[in-house]
């Protein structure tokens, strides 16, 4: 199990992503799998930073990863207000250059790249979301 704090600021997030990538490379994860993990971490951290509601200001999330049967099992935990990412639309309309607003792509993209296996709100006040990512 690899556990790491996931800061929401660009510099901290970039450093954490580098450590996750190093771990996955050491474990023999494919380029495709490493891309998917980086994408899910980037999207979820961005979502927390842009939309998360924190009682005491934004706090780093934490991630735990393990590889099992060529799949990455990723657990993300954060202290923002309760939010089940499975409650969002799994797909979005194709973007248009005629629209002035472009957004809302992140979570649908996560759902295309990973299975969100479980969500729970812990008694400690943390959100816990479990993802499974594979090479398919």
């Amino acid at each position, binding site marked *: 199990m690899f556990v790491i704090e996931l800061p929401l600021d660009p510099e901290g997030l970039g450093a954490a992503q580098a450590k996750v990538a190093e771990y996955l490379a050491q474990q023999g994860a494919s380029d495709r799998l490493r891309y998917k993990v980086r994408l899910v971490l980037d999207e979820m951290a*961005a979502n927390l930073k842009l939309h998360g509601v924190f009682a005491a200001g934004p706090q780093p999330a934490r991630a735990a990863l393990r590889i099992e049967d060529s799949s990455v099992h990723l657990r993300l935990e954060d202290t923002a207000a309760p939010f089940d990412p499975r409650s969002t639309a799994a797909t979005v309309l194709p973007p248009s250059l005629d629209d002035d607003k472009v957004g809302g792509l992140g979570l649908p993209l996560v759902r295309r790249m990973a299975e969100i296996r479980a969500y729970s709100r812990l008694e400690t006040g943390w959100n816990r979301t479990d993802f499974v990512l594979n090479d398919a």
Partner: protein
Amino acid sequence: MRFELVELGPTVNKVVLVGRLDSVTVGSVETPLTAAVAASGRSAVLDMTGLEFLSSLGIRLLLSAARVVTRRGGQVVLFGVQPMVREVLTAMALDEVLPVVGTESEALARVGA
């Protein structure tokens, strides 16, 4: 993340993207990259050969820049897209909005240069 602007002629520029375009980097390149892509109302071909990672915030940036170009009468075409970046573009149906072709020659032909 870095990019380079290359003037290919009176109506088209090439913008070479290198690195990762994600939540970590987008804030530092958003303004200059949009200006480069949308410069002078020219069409733009984006060399994606060296872009190894693209997330939704990067997609949003590319769409915003392309919107400016199209409103000024130009076009934006992507070429040399790496496989996983291509998969992300396809997953979000972006390739239906911004043409993706294989080579620079094809991209230039697409914008009529």
